[in-house]
């Protein structure tokens, strides 16, 4: 179901014209109103008049999270303070938080893109949306709330946690749409199973999962256990919250709402814009935001763009599900490697589960990569020969796919440190 047929199926030329007009408006606005952007543009030698079409965007300087923190709280404001109607911030766990201040129009845009998102999984005014994203400063809760309200569905604003109550309300009110983090959905499935709930009878039809990395394996597990269609959604507080991109019913790459958020993929080292299909760092410009617009924000998320037409009929560009973070990128003997690429290779080897750790060291001036993979019943053999052959097979696959030479070491199950459910993927011991 397409929520806004006109804007979601714009012919490409019309879309580009719209983006160009919005970008020109945006650049003038921030140059006049935001000293932060004016200083950056002056330093880069770019004037608003230099930006005539969307293709000129690459002339504008990038914005980083650290820069946004430095101007906390109101340094990015591009409107009168009295026009702000709502404020969200990032968690601030790694420093000063990033502020997202919304005007009434920004909230309208947010509602619109979240309504499009929920409609992608088939949500209509007849649905009952159980919103288990946290309500508060975190954008997940209110983002889904506004989208569901825009569609006219019933929202159960239960917020996160309180699993017993989640399950009770789900059955009592006949929830049809679930919104939460993917890991929490599996937790709910498990808790429900222990309570004897048969999810095939609950009547869930779709789930909108985001805010943390997940995988195709997790999708299969969630869909099987909860009997719903699991949709991957993407967003970030620095841009608007959820509602930047979402999978449609095809579940094949996420449509970016590019009439509002213009995406680019760049080489994280050189900053050069990469063509579709090439993996790099996602950069987003908010074309329509009035409160705290962001120009060429470096998300540090790794993906690639897919400009192939989607069978759903939407014309917007799609992105692959997030493949990793630039913070995780490793350079091993001059070769760029993301842990997610190694994970992809591992998952294609029979019997290997995605429990791994990369240990990088430097010996005799050369980088040395050890890939530790957890042993499991499927891989294990009682003969040393078979285990060593498996290690060799994994090393050869890594070499042929990624051109890296790694020592592969099978380790005991659960021996790779997991902190709060997230595995620590990379240990870099190099002292350079």
């Amino acid at each position, binding site marked *: 179901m397409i929520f806004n047929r006109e804007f979601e199926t714009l012919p490409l030329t019309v879309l580009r014209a719209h983006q160009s007009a919005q970008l020109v408006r945006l650049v003038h606005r921030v140059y006049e109103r935001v000293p932060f952007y004016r200083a950056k543009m002056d330093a880069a030698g770019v004037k608003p008049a230099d930006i005539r079409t969307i293709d000129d965007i690459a002339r504008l300087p990038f914005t980083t999270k650290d820069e946004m923190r430095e101007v906390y709280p109101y340094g990015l404001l591009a409107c009168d303070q009295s026009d702000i109607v709502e404020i969200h911030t990032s968690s601030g766990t790694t420093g000063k938080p990033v502020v997202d201040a919304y005007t009434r129009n920004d909230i309208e845009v947010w509602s619109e893109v979240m309504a499009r998102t929920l409609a992608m999984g088939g949500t209509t005014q007849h649905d009952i949306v159980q919103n288990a994203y946290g309500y508060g400063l975190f954008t997940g809760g209110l983002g889904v709330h506004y989208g569901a309200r825009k569609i006219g569905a019933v929202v159960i604003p239960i917020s996160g946690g309180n699993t017993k109550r989640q399950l009770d309300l789900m059955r009592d009110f006949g929830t049809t749409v679930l919104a939460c983090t993917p890991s929490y959905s599996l937790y709910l499935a498990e808790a429900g199973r222990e309570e004897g709930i048969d999810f095939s009878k609950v009547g869930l039809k779709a789930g909108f999962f985001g805010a943390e990395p997940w995988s195709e394996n997790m999708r299969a597990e969630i869909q099987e256990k909860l009997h719903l269609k699991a949709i991957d959604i993407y967003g970030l507080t620095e841009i608007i919250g959820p509602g930047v991109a979402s999978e449609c019913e095809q579940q094949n790459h996420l449509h970016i709402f590019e009439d509002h958020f213009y995406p680019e993929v760049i080489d994280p080292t050189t900053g050069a814009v990469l063509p579709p299909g090439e993996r790099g760092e996602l950069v987003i410009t908010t074309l329509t935001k009035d409160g705290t617009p962001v120009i060429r924000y470096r998300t540090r998320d790794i993906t690639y763009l897919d400009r192939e037409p989607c069978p759903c009929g939407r014309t917007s560009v799609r992105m692959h599900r997030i493949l990793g973070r630039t913070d995780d990128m490793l350079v091993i003997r001059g070769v760029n490697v993301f842990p997610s690429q190694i994970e992809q290779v591992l998952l294609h080897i029979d019997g290997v589960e995605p429990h791994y750790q990369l240990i990088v060291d430097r010996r005799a001036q050369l980088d040395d990569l050890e890939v530790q993979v957890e042993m*499991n019943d499927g891989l*294990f053999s*009682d003969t040393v020969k078979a285990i*060593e052959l498996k290690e060799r097979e994994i090393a050869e696959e890594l070499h042929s796919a990624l051109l890296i030479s790694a020592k592969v070491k099978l380790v005991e199950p659960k021996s790779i440190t997991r902190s709060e459910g997230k595995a620590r993927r990379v240990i870099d011991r190099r002292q350079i």
Partner: protein
Amino acid sequence: MKIQQISVFLENKPGRLASVAQVLKDNAINIRALTVADTLDFGVLRMVVNRPDQAMAVLRQAGFTVKAATIIAVEIDDREGVFYDIMKLCDAEGLNIEYTYSFVEQQAKKAILFMRFEDPDRAAAIFTQHGYRLLTNEEARSI
């Protein structure tokens, strides 16, 4: 006659064997025979125990990777030259030994030779044909 052996994957670091031993002790499982194959990074502990199914379950529960393998246990006389006879027989029949270990039963003046073959059925048939006695699962568990 074939018997069930269980194998446990161990990283080559201190305390791992002790952890396995503790799980077996806590569950009152008696080890009848054992051997460890070690490499630089890992080891494979192979055991014949009195209650293999239970041993596998409790070890798995404790987080170990465990696998059952079918091996054969040949009872031989405890004297010089018998091991040579067996090896000669395997060689002549083209039986490829994956690994082997043994122990001596002093009172009976016998020894038990545990052997793992790619094709345990064929190996068992050949040994029986040549007059060797193979231990049953029950005998191996109550050695």
